[in-house]
């Protein structure tokens, strides 16, 4: 080889190495133009050159220092040229491989190993090539180098082969599993027998007969082997076959013996289920009940290996799709690079027949169409029947009639059809689906009776009819309590009670005297209920076919709102609520002390000055108070109420010293009412003192208690 050519080749290898480095670095951002993809696909062809050439070169290099060859000029030159050519072709192969790897089909651990072995082979052999003419290079380097490089070459080649041919390609038994459709498949012939064929027969056949067992024909299988019968139909737990399979892998009698291909979990499960189901040799897979475990496993083992949908139609024009897409008609691509589209309609008001018609432009590409709850009429079904590639159609709760449905007959690719809540009838479905790909139809809430569904299931064993939940009257559930919708429980003059229940056609009955409402005597709430006094409203909801609700209790207070409110001392800083006004906001807080509506006092007394423009005759003053000893919330120690015509002439009108809660008392809310001496007043002063020392039974005994008030009620 002439020197110039050699220099070119050397430079080329150098450039290739840089290119490979670069491609590796930007591995995940490469975008390969179409024309270059074919170059990548030549990788599996081209790779044979470097393998062959490099191997030969390594062998020659290995014997380079041998007495015989040492002096031969041709030997040296030939080795050199082979090495150079081999590395060059390896570099090109790697670049091709990197281009190919960007294509989606290749992924995973095997690819990574293949890639890094290939790349290191090129780098290391290039370095090797440069160093092999150095002074220090000798026999040891030559032998070690070529052995290492050969190993790299083998590993790279091996993982490449695994990628193209699959794991265990050489060792695995030649598979004879023929593809049979689920309808025709027999449980034994097409599901069980192939397992024996692949994993057992190599040792249990006419020639080998290990343990005197032969698994080649039905009779021999029934006969069993040296250790007895292979299985007892219906009793998998007593069957030798399953015992051997389930022994631990290390056990001597475990089958298949360790080192041979083992049964997968599905396979051993299928054998178990088959034995359990009486080990029939003639049964069809489709004779098994639809949700039978054996059937499910059999179906998945019979499924073709690659379930990914491939479509043979072209993608729709991007602009058209964008134009058709709007807020209420969503068109989505099924997946990146797929021509298929899925369309969903939302918002009843925005739907019209025309909005469906516009989809004609992309009718070939639509594989899924959701029209649930849209007012779709029969006429539109004709249009839909022209969407020939439709696989999934959702017509739940549409206005289609029984007649229109026959228009869908022409949809040969349809797999899932949802007709729940439509007027579809039994006889519509009866004749429709013969010989179709349909897998699932939902007919919940359609008025098709149970016996008709049974008939349909018999007629179309391959279709899963989903009938859903039907209320057969057996489940009596309890209604929820009626809800009081009024915005507050305190009123000043009168209150129009607004009761609500989320269920329709329900009777809300009530009492105003504190008694339990019943279904006969208590009046029914009809929307007009006016109350003028403080009282306890008890209500209950009733409906036939349901358990009546629990009693809802609402305490309603009538209270006069003062014209001027002033809080004389500051409340506790953690319980400020909305200041004085929250005592007259008609809002009652719940039992949680952290509710923001509670006004709290601990350091200061509650001192409240109230003024009325018109003098009032006030009989009662109440403080709605939380009592929750667990949170150290106690009622006031004492409540004093003073009154008079103006702030200067106040006299004591009433005192209350509330009873203190005991250790066992549960938390609660209490209206602490002070009854007043009869006097007409235009000014009131209320002083409530929080408890100074918590009683001795309490964990924080001796400390001051918190007093929480959410409303002042004046009558």
């Amino acid at each position: 080889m002439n020197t110039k050519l050699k220099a070119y080749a050397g430079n080329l290898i150098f450039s290739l190495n840089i290119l490979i480095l670069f491609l590796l670095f930007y591995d995940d951002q490469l975008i390969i133009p179409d024309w270059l993809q074919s170059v990548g696909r030549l990788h599996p062809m081209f790779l044979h050159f470097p393998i062959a050439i490099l191997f030969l070169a390594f062998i020659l290099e290995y014997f380079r220092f041998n007495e015989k060859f040492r002096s031969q000029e041709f030997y040296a030159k030939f080795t050199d040229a082979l090495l150079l050519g081999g590395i060059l072709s390896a570099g090109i192969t790697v670049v091709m491989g990197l281009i190919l790897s960007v294509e989606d089909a290749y992924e995973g651990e095997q690819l990574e190993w293949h890639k890094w072995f290939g790349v290191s082979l090129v780098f290391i052999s290039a370095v090797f090539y440069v160093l092999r003419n150095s002074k220090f290079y000798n026999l040891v380097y030559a032998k070690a180098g070529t052995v290492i490089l050969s190993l790299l070459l083998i590993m790279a080649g091996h993982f490449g082969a695994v990628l193209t041919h699959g794991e265990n390609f050489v060792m695995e038994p030649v598979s004879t599993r023929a593809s049979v459709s689920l309808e025709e498949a027999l449980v034994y012939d097409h599901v069980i027998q192939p397992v024996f064929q692949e994993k057992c027969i190599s040792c249990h056949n006419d020639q080998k007969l290990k343990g005197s067992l032969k698994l080649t024909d039905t009779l021999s299988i029934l006969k069993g082997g040296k250790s007895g019968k292979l299985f007892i139909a219906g009793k998998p737990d007593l069957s030798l076959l399953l015992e051997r399979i389930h022994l631990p892998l290390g056990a001597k009698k475990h089958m298949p013996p360790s080192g041979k291909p083992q049964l997968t979990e599905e396979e051993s499960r299928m054998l178990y289920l088959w034995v359990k189901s009486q080990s029939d040799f003639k049964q069809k897979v489709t004779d098994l009940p639809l949700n039978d475990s054996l059937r499910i496993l059999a179906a998945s083992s019979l499924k073709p290996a690659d379930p990914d949908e491939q479509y043979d139609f072209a993608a729709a024009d991007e602009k058209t799709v964008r134009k058709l897409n709007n807020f209420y008609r969503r068109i989505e691509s099924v997946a990146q690079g797929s021509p298929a589209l899925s369309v969903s309609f939302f918002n009843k008001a925005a739907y019209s027949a025309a909005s469906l018609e516009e989809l004609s432009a992309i009718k070939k590409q639509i594989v899924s169409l959701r029209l649930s709850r849209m007012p779709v009429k029969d006429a539109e079904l004709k249009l839909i029947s022209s969407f020939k590639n439709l696989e999934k159609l959702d017509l739940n709760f549409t206005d289609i009639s029984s007649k229109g449905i026959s228009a869908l007959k022409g949809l040969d690719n349809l797999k899932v059809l949802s007709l729940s809540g439509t007027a579809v009838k039994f006889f519509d479905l009866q004749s429709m689906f013969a010989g179709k790909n349909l897998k699932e139809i939902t007919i919940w809430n359609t008025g098709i009776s149970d016996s008709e569904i049974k008939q349909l299931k018999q007629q179309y064993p391959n279709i899963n009819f989903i009938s859903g939940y039907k209320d057969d009257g057996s489940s009596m559930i309890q209604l929820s309590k009626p809800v009081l919708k009024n915005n507050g429980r305190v009123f000043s003059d009168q209150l129009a009670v607004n009761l609500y229940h989320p269920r329709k056609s329900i009777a809300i009955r009530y009492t105003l005297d504190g008694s339990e409402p019943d279904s006969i005597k208590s009046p029914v709430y009809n929307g007009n209920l006016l109350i003028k006094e403080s009282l306890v409203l008890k209500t209950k909801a009733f409906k036939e076919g349901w358990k009546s609700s629990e009693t809802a209790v609402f305490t309603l207070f009538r209270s006069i709102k003062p014209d001027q409110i002033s809080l004389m001392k500051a409340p506790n800083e953690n319980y400020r609520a909305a200041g004085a006004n929250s005592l007259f906001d008609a809002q009652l807080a719940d039992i949680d002390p952290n509710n923001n509506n509670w006004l709290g006092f601990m350091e200061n007394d509650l001192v409240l000055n109230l003024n009325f423009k018109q003098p009032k005759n006030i009989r009662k003053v109440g403080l709605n108070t939380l009592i929750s000893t667990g949170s150290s919330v106690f009622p006031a120690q004492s409540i004093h109420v003073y009154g008079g015509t103006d702030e200067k002439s106040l006299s004591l009108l009433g005192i209350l010293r509330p009873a203190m809660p005991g250790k066992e008392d549960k938390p609660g809310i209490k209206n602490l009412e002070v009854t007043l001496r009869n006097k007409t007043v235009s000014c009131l002063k209320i002083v409530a003192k929080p408890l100074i020392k918590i009683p001795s039974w309490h964990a924080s005994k001796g400390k001051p208690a918190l007093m929480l008030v959410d409303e002042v009620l004046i009558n």
Partner: protein
Amino acid sequence: MEKDFLEHGLNFNRRRFLSRLSLGLGSVALGSLLVPDIFNGDSSDSGWVPGIPHFAPKAKRVIYLFQNGAPSQLELFDYKPRLRDLMGQDLPDSVRRGQRLTGMTANQTSFPMVGSFVDFKQYGDSRSWISDLLPHTARVVDDICIIRSMYTEAINHDPALTFFQTGAQQGNRPSMGSWLSYGLGSENKNLPSFTVLLSKGRQGNNQGVYSKLWSSGFLDSVHQGVQFSSGDDPVLYLKDPDGMNKQERRKFLDHLSQLNQISYEEFGDPEISTKIQQYEMAYRMQTAVPDIMDLSKEPDDIIKLYGSDSMIPGTFAANCLLARKLSENGVRFVQLYHQGWDHHGNLPNDIASQAKEVDQASAALITDLKQRGLLDETLVIWGGEFGRTNYSQGKWTAGNYGRDHHPRCFSIWMAGGGIKPGISYGETDEFGYNIVKDPVHVHDFQATILNQLGLNHEKLVFKHLGRRYRLTDVSGKVINDILA
């Protein structure tokens, strides 16, 4: 003379250096033709536009019934009769193997094992063991896939919850729902693609859930989860204020969006255009939301299916029903949280009440989706953030005990969305303490969810602060064995 030789050598090397350099640069230039984005600052994954799945998805939507507080697997799904025989005996060190415990039981002098107070039975064609506390779930057992071998890294509620939701324990990363919204875009443009519903158990220990759990992290804030609450105002600030009518609102929004547009052009902050979009969506939500939130239009038999509680807004049952409606209306990810599973003490009583609150509605959701033909394309997930110990926290009697946090094993279930129905996956040892078969890490679980939605968890990335982030961080394997 020597110097000349040296010089000659150097000259030669310089020439060689230059020629090699040019060759190298040439190669790089050649290679760069294949990387179109190399000179753009943004080097997010090429070829893929967020909003379209990587491959054809099995599931289009997710409803995640998160059981917050960590329900005890030993009383619900993981049947361990041996624990009853060993009642009260100390947990052998050979089982615990020095694994860490929480501060709540680490100082306990003994670890008395306790068996479940409740019985288990086998149900359905799959003969899966289900506790008597879940009679309704038992009815749909052939529609669900129970994973008994989940494990996590965190041992306390907040980090564990955050780990499940965002793939990291520390927070500030996008939630799973946000990742899906980012990866798949919204299906119904009139509703947020990620919504959150909260409910609380009536008894027991309610652990907090915070809005950081549905944050969009570094993703665009359109992907943020929107909380729907019960009551008259399901989405806060969505209603027009009193006295403002639709036309005025429209005008107001038009002008506001013009102003926002101007400032967007000036500053180019993408959050401004997000804001414009959000206002517009809120406007459309004003009509869509009240319709969805109104459960009074649901027929009686649906209410009976979901149970009494479904009539009371804010309960788990009502939220399940709402979740179905939202999902039916194209919300990609509906996240429920039901609080109150943290049974450190008084477990038998509290778990029974808690199970009663969720059992019927969870099963009803499966039945309801199925009868609408939606279960195939909706992935339903039920589970907590970790499991509970096989030993009692504090004192125990056969009828009353508590269980501490246990991240080593716990059970969850998934249904629909291309998950194999009617199977149980994974196994724990007879003590219910360690996993013995098919462990599933939280990242594996997340990878599987993304896979069902047509997303490759290794490719769903977002570059932030110089690093490409994934929901599954740097690990996670799709559990192929549970895929239909």
